[in-house]
């Protein structure tokens, strides 16, 4: 694998103007929900973070109606080329988000996409309704990787559940609605078609893939929640295949993610049919990874497509 370049030296915001659901963006690289906390990062890095903001839009961490503490630690397990997390969607809840987070996130230099999740369709409707008229919010992303407590079905694993959910919330807002698909479905393409038919404006994929690890000493599950979600380089090939499959089956714009580390990885997902690419786990290794990926992508575009540049077998 070619050495990963340095974040230093990327002075100007990379310019690759992109339109997504009518939103004008400086380049196609955003963050995966839950993998970057712009408020905490600003505490660590100060105003320099805002000046060199790594993404062309900011996707905030999943918001639920009620506040959540998240799962008991340990929450992380490192894998060869990735990690398993069982964070458990800690967040301040809708009221906390509106009071504390939204005003700060609205001051970021890029459009804001709010990611929401509910345990019933009515909860999701309440969340969508709360943001429907907020001018600080450019789009909404529905995290459907959770069970509907009324039916027991993972909303996004079942085309029928997904259709009913999107139909329920579609009339509530004119803002773009992005449905974030789960890869833990038998046929993500069928879920994608259901979301499109029900009125979604865009789809994002992939979310994390269920996985687990045992404590090497006790041989009991390591993660506090037992199982977690796999992300990082190790899921890249799966993401690419799912993005291509979904792109074939729907005509909606796609936000593709899963293991993106370099401009080349982003380019692969764009070629598979995506409009935007999100960087997740790689930001843990370098807060400015998104900016570097965008710069590398711009460089690839400048060079023109030159598939011979990398040995085909390189990872």
């Amino acid at each position, binding site marked *: 694998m070619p050495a990963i370049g340095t974040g230093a030296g990327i002075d100007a915001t990379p310019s690759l103007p992109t339109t997504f659901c009518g939103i004008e963006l400086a380049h196609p690289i955003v963050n995966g929900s839950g993998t970057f906390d712009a408020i905490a*990062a600003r505490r660590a890095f100060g105003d320099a973070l805002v000046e060199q903001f790594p993404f062309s839009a900011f996707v905030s961490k999943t918001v639920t109606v009620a506040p959540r503490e998240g799962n008991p630690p340990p929450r*992380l397990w490192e894998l060869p080329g990735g990690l398993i997390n069982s964070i458990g969607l800690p967040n301040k809840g809708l009221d906390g988000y509106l009071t504390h987070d939204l005003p700060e996130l609205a001051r970021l230099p890029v459009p804001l996409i709010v990611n929401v999740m509910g345990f019933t369709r009515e909860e999701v409707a309440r969340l969508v309704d709360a943001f429907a008229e907020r001018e600080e919010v450019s789009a909404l992303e529905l995290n459907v990787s959770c069970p509907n407590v009324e039916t027991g079905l993972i909303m996004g694993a079942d085309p029928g559940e997904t259709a009913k959910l999107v139909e329920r919330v579609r009339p509530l807002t004119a803002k773009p609605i992005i449905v974030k698909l789960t890869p833990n479905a038998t046929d993500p393409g069928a879920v994608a078609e259901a979301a499109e038919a029900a009125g979604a404006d865009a789809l994002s994929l992939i979310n994390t893939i269920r996985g687990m690890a045992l404590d090497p000493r006790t041989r009991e599950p390591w993660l506090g929640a037992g199982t977690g979600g796999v992300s990082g380089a190790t899921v890249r090939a799966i993401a690419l295949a799912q993005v291509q499959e979904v792109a074939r089956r729907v005509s909606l714009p796609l936000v593709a993610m899963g293991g993106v580390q370099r401009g080349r990885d982003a380019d692969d997902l764009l070629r598979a049919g995506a409009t935007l690419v999100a960087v997740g786990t790689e930001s843990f290794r370098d807060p400015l990874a998104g900016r570097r990926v965008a710069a590398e992508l711009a460089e690839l575009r400048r060079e023109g497509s030159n598939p011979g540049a990398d040995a085909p077998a390189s990872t």
Partner: protein
Amino acid sequence: MSATATTTDDGRRTLSPPGRRRATVIERRVHGSYVVLRVADPEGQPARPGQFAMLAAAERWGGGDGERPFLPRAFSVARIPAPGEAEFLLEDVGPGTERLCELEAGDALWLLGPLGIGFGLEAGGRRPLLAGGGVGIAPLAILQDELAASGAADLAPALLGFRDAPHAEGAALLRHGARVATDDGSVGHHGRVTELLVEELDRDERAQVYACGPPAMLEAVRALCAERDVPVQLALESGMACGYGACFGCVVPTKSGYVRLCVDGPVLDGEQLETALVPGAGH
């Protein structure tokens, strides 16, 4: 060292530049079971005692066939030997530390930091008392340097606990005095560092304790200080993926719920905690 370092959180946090940067190992020293890496980091600002950095080797890390290590590892800044430099204390305990321990002078590494909130040096007239165990002595070295430089008169020696003689060689990192305890009695006091702490507190309880070490030691120090109403600041450890609040993976339970150790710590007040035994730490 730039005079313009920006600090926040009552001077306990030096802000980090937002990108990881390529730094160079300029010296590798072996202290018994430990390796000290001296790193040139001209773009970096001087850490406050207790702050940390995320480190990864620039080569053979999270690439190629995707072997572990994949994520950077958190290390307390152990000392600032000169402007634009930092020292880190390492012990080979897993794939990440093994790779970093191999680095030689001239090798490159990725560095992000300084990160987190360090020790509060305002001791309200109490005498500072430093207690550390194992590789956790690292932040006490920079803390002791700073206390000595600010003229803290008759600074008590730092109390340091180790497993055995090879580990006890780490005590050389503390330049302004140390008393050592070892589990096997091969160096210094035969027993636990908390026994030395009890001695010191028996002598004079008007102390502000600063502690860093393995979870069981930190918990013993926390409980001891709570019992005697002695204020204590503990530098904790937990598994970190990012070091700057992005992943929510490093939480520890406190009396007010989970806090992310990388942005709200790693130094916490003993009073914030029911226990310093952090699930998953020390792995």
